[in-house]
């Protein structure tokens, strides 16, 4: 038993990000006047280099390291790339917002990188312990980010709520893991858990008992229906720059958590977790869409819409399971998670764009007459809203379409009908924003004076939503190929 340095090569991206975190911490401690700018630039640089590392080490096979605790496989690679992208975009959007509110301290960027590292660890975990450590690293940094505006009561309250409920959810997840550990005779490694469940006459009662807690923990981290209580308050309370982070990349990581725990470790119990997720998905779609109808605050509205979107994503996840359906089901869920991240980034990016020093564009009314004020950004917001509503030829439509296709193939016709009905109802609140933008008089005529980089990136983001809607093929194929490589050939 010895430690081989070659292990580190497999985890180059993780090691690089960890080293950069320490380097940025030291650099900003000594760079006095330029610390804020330096932290931002180095953070973006770190994410860009990590993107290159991950992109060029993308392989079709799975590569294990650190006594099988770490796995580098195609779905993990794609999810990591998307996490970097989401973080880069979220940090870019949030920069001016933070500077206006004197919140752009170097610690913000350090915590953002640490939460990214936590997500990377979760995405590449092949061991219950690593999944848990990654989850904690991600969540602890997020709790601090939510409370980052420490002089605002709403921000600290949101941070506190998120922290207490998040700790409870981590406890549930850990308890579930301990049951799995006990029932499988001491297996923590995911493939060992899988083998133990498949081979021996393992006690199903204890396994199922643990599974319930695992599903509860995952549902909390995704923010889906019976465990959604924190989502609206935390989204509304945290600074919009943090809401940007919170609503995009962690959803991808939570999807990876669900994929690893349920699909990689416990495919033998697929029937059970699928029926649990079926209930959770149906409930989130109904609750998210209905509650979003009555919101006046756009951050709360997007939070409820996020709950329903995560319900849709789970529909894809639960229609995998069988070896034949695994690729379609899981890949549709992954496609959904990625396109949701793109849409939510653009939506909260618009909220940031309309905000300025001393003013938070928090109400839906603040979008009134946006077309008069700036027709281009009104058009982009229209793209985002149409895409979220699932109107054809935007990326949201294809995401919904592939998920519905997968769930019908899996034989759950009723939930497809329910989901379509609910998204029709949900279209109302997305279209209301469009109505405000195009048919109402502007209340507030201040010209938009966001920074150039924000405007350029937001335009790219909006155009990407439209373009991916016109040609979703490449991304869909990537997702499917990755899932096929991980779940069909490799088993």
């Amino acid at each position: 038993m010895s430690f081989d340095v070659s292990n580190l090569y497999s985890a180059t991206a993780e090691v690089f990000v960890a080293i950069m975190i320490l380097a940025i911490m030291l650099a900003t401690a000594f760079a006095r006047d330029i610390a804020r700018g330096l932290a931002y630039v180095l953070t973006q640089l770190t994410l860009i280099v990590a993107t290159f590392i991950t992109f060029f080490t993308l392989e079709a096979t799975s590569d294990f390291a650190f006594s099988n605790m770490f796995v580098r496989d195609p779905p993990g690679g794609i999810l990591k790339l998307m996490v970097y992208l989401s973080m880069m975009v979220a940090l870019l959007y949030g920069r001016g917002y933070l500077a206006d509110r004197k919140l752009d301290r170097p610690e913000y960027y350090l915590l953002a990188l640490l939460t990214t590292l936590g997500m990377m660890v979760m995405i590449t975990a092949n061991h219950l312990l690593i999944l848990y450590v990654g989850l904690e690293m991600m969540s602890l940094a997020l709790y601090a980010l939510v409370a980052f505006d420490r002089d605002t009561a709403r921000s600290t309250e949101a941070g506190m709520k998120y922290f207490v409920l998040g700790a409870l959810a981590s406890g549930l997840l850990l308890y579930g893991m301990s049951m799995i550990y006990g029932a499988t005779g001491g297996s923590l490694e995911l493939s060992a858990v899988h083998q133990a469940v498949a081979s021996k006459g393992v006690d199903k009662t204890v396994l199922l008992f643990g599974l319930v807690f695992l599903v509860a923990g995952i549902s909390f981290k995704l923010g889906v229906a019976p465990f959604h209580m924190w989502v609206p308050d935390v989204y509304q309370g945290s600074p919009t720059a943090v809401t940007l982070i919170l609503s995009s990349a962690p959803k991808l990581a939570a999807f990876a958590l669900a994929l690893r725990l349920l699909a990689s470790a416990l495919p033998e119990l697929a029937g059970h977790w699928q029926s649990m997720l079926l209930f959770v998905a149906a409930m989130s779609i109904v609750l998210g869409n209905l509650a979003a109808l009555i919101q006046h605050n756009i951050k709360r509205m997007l939070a409820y819409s996020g709950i329903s979107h995560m319900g849709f994503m789970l529909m894809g996840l639960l229609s995998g399971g069988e070896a034949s359906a695994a690729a379609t089901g899981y890949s549709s869920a992954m496609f959904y998670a990625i396109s949701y991240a793109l849409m939510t980034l653009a939506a909260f990016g618009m909220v940031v764009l309309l905000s300025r020093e001393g003013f938070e564009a928090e109400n839906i009314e603040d979008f009134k007459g946006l077309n008069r004020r700036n027709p281009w950004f009104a058009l982009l917001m229209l793209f985002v809203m149409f895409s979220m509503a699932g109107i054809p030829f935007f990326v949201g439509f294809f995401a919904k379409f592939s998920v519905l296709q997968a769930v019908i193939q899996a034989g759950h016709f009723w939930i497809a009908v329910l989901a379509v009905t609910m998204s029709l109802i949900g279209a109302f609140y997305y279209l209301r924003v469009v109505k405000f933008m195009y048919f109402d008089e502007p209340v507030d005529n201040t010209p938009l004076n966001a920074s150039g980089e924000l405007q350029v990136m937001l335009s790219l983001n909006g155009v990407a939503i439209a373009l991916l809607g016109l040609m979703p093929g490449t991304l869909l194929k990537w997702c499917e190929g990755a899932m096929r490589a991980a779940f069909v050939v490799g088993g």
Partner: protein
Amino acid sequence: MEFSTFIFYFFATVLVLAGLGVITARNPVYAALFLVLAFFSAGGVWLLLSAEFLAIVLIMVYVGAVMVLFLFVVMMLDIDFAHLREGFWKYLPMGAAVGVLLAVEMGLVLANGFGGKPMPAAAATITGQATPVACGNNICELGRVLYTEYAYPFELAALVLLVAMIAAVSLTLRRRSGPYSEKYISPESQVAVRHEDRMMLVKMAAEKEAPEGPAAPAGAEGQ
């Protein structure tokens, strides 16, 4: 009954009772002291499992440092515990119903799953996996495993602690910029001070004297 079994049941009973004490004690100081007792008995159980290093670390770190710090905090902060307990009776029926239900379910499941049957044999114990180096004691074994097989989670745990440090600093450290800012003087600028900085000579045009003559205006106001 063997003597060690007796010891185990003794520690286990004390542990469970102390745990109950933690959550039922009305005075938070008693609750903290119950927690200390719980840690002691858990340490005893670990000693029985011949994890003596962990047992001693548990007592040193948790009892010696964490709980003492916790007691300090409880005693120094003036928390209104009566206010915190306000909704207790209102929420008790609902909470108790859910709690009892959950406890019964868990009891049934666990009795069904684990009760009476021998535990499944451990797939691989940590120390028995590879050829163990002659390493007689606990600390040596732990160190060996931590830095080889568990190097990855070990390093990650260190980064989690870093998160906690950065979060704590960023949420609590205040550069005084409010009314107290003038109290802080950087030693650097104190050392670098020149005599021109200490006194400022202002050239200004002569002002016309007040008609009363030399009487100071400030004094006049006081009379």
